[in-house]
């Protein structure tokens, strides 16, 4: 592990400019896997308990996660993920919940044999009159390293972009009951995707 740059401020590690940010973050996540880090927060005008309960039912996630083709819930802790990959095809993995605090946070890690190793945590923090701050911190190994990351970005399937868009869609769905689209009809909505 590289030497940690000393952090002299109070900013979240996901905003770090240091090259070893992912290493530092992995220290905070159980069974951390992945060498790249993504972090996004969004404020949603709903109680934490309501958001947590929708999110915790993984069957719901494809309703706002654009690249998730399907999730099979295997048992209380494990689920199987099938996710669209850049340039067509899919990648798959089993995920296991490593820590969970009812109404507050869910952490996971991928099981051995994952196409894309990843781990992370989603937190739901009460924000008073503004609702709840939902923060996703994701560690992952980009397919084929840095080249894969560039290609993924070209195809808009880079996890940083995805995480931001997925959280924004989660906010829309929770606050308005729908996901915004300029589609002129249901068929076009389906073709455009989320």
């Amino acid at each position: 592990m590289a030497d940690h740059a000393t952090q002299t401020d109070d900013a979240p590690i996901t905003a770090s400019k240091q090259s070893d940010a992912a290493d530092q973050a992995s220290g905070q996540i159980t069974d951390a896997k992945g060498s790249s880090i993504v972090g996004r927060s969004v404020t949603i005008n709903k109680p934490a308990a309501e958001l947590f309960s929708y999110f915790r039912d993984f069957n719901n996630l494809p309703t706002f996660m654009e690249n998730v083709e399907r999730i099979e819930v295997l048992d209380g802790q494990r689920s199987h993920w099938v996710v669209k990959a850049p340039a067509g095809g899919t990648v798959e993995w089993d995920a296991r919940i490593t820590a969970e605090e009812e109404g507050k946070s869910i952490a996971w890690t991928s099981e051995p044999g994952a196409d894309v190793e990843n781990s992370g945590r989603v937190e739901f923090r009460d924000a008073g009159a503004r609702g709840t701050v939902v923060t996703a911190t994701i560690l992952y190994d980009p397919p084929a390293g840095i080249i894969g990351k560039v290609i993924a970005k070209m195809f808009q399937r880079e996890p940083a972009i995805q995480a931001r868009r997925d959280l924004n869609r989660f906010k829309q769905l929770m606050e308005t009951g729908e996901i915004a689209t300029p589609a002129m009809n249901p068929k076009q909505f389906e073709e455009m995707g989320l």
Partner: protein
Amino acid sequence: MKALAWHGKHDVRMDTVDDPEIVNPRDCIIKVTSTAICGSDLHLYDHFIPTMQAGDVLGHEFMGEVVEVGAKSTLKKGQRVVVPFTISCGSCYHCNKHQYSACPNGLPADNQDIARTAYGQEMSALFGYSHMTGGYAGGQAEYVRVPFSDVGPIVIPDGVEDDKVLFLSDILPTGWQAAEYAQIEPGDTVAVWGCGPVGLFAVQSAFLMGAERVIAIDHFPNRLALARKFGAETINFEETAVYDALMEMTGGIGPDAVIDAVGLEAHGLFVDNVIDEIKAATFLGTDRIHSIRQAIIACRKGGRVSMPAVYGGFVDKFPLGAFMEKGLTLKTGQTHVQHYMPALLNAIMEEKIDTEFLISHRLPLMDAPKGYKMFKDNQNECTKVVLKPGMAAA
């Protein structure tokens, strides 16, 4: 259906496109009865706004009859409604604060990225106004899909003519908000740059809010005459040195509040304007801003600057020194239309505000391309073009 589609700079056409259908439960579909061409549509026509795509249906000032409702719409078929140009959800943090044009929930997540990169945060979606604002088909069409129809459109009482209430969709609330942002106090003198629809509604609004004097600035004699009709004193900037005139008209103090209702295509052959034009043409800067510079320089010390005018990008030579040294306050932003609609509908019904004076031309929707050209080429006489899908072609 027929709809006015953008195809490039100064190229808009009546295309045949699919009829809209209900997509989300809170949607409704309206059959358009009246729709106007806005000054900000000319920014699209002149291709000053990025993220336009060939085939985009324009129009953000429209009203009509509800013909279809989604499961969660509160409207009923047959109701007549005016639709606000801002697409706002009514339940997020910003909507709860009545900052409707800051609502992110109508803007698709991929479009949010564009705005976040350009402006730091995403703004509300708008009808018919580029993909940065959502890529929603606009109202210069026979039918429109209206999201969040349970909180956006305002129902118009039977027997009230379209032409009286159509401008609730944008320019009347925009002019009113401009005057409100000028924080007018009794006895104030307010100067308004630009006697287009927003400027003229700002003139009326400023008087209703207690301004003692309003000074309106433009170079089109017909538009200045309309401002005078509402009690404004006028300055024609082609004949008169604006700063000198304002100083003399205010006893050397300057106007207490200034309103820039011109925006990014400010006309006039001023040196800074010519430089701006060269820079805009070479993409070194995107906005031409003579009017806001002049307004800041003329404003009295400790005065208020209100900027309803549309700006999209970066500017230079912004008189930041004058702004700071004089201790000015600036308020600006896209209009929070939904916040103002009910009170302004009442003001129209009570005949406190005149709206119909503005309409210079009524055309069938099919003549929309002609309407754009006319509005662009003859701004003196052409103050507002209203398109009527139901009107037979001449």
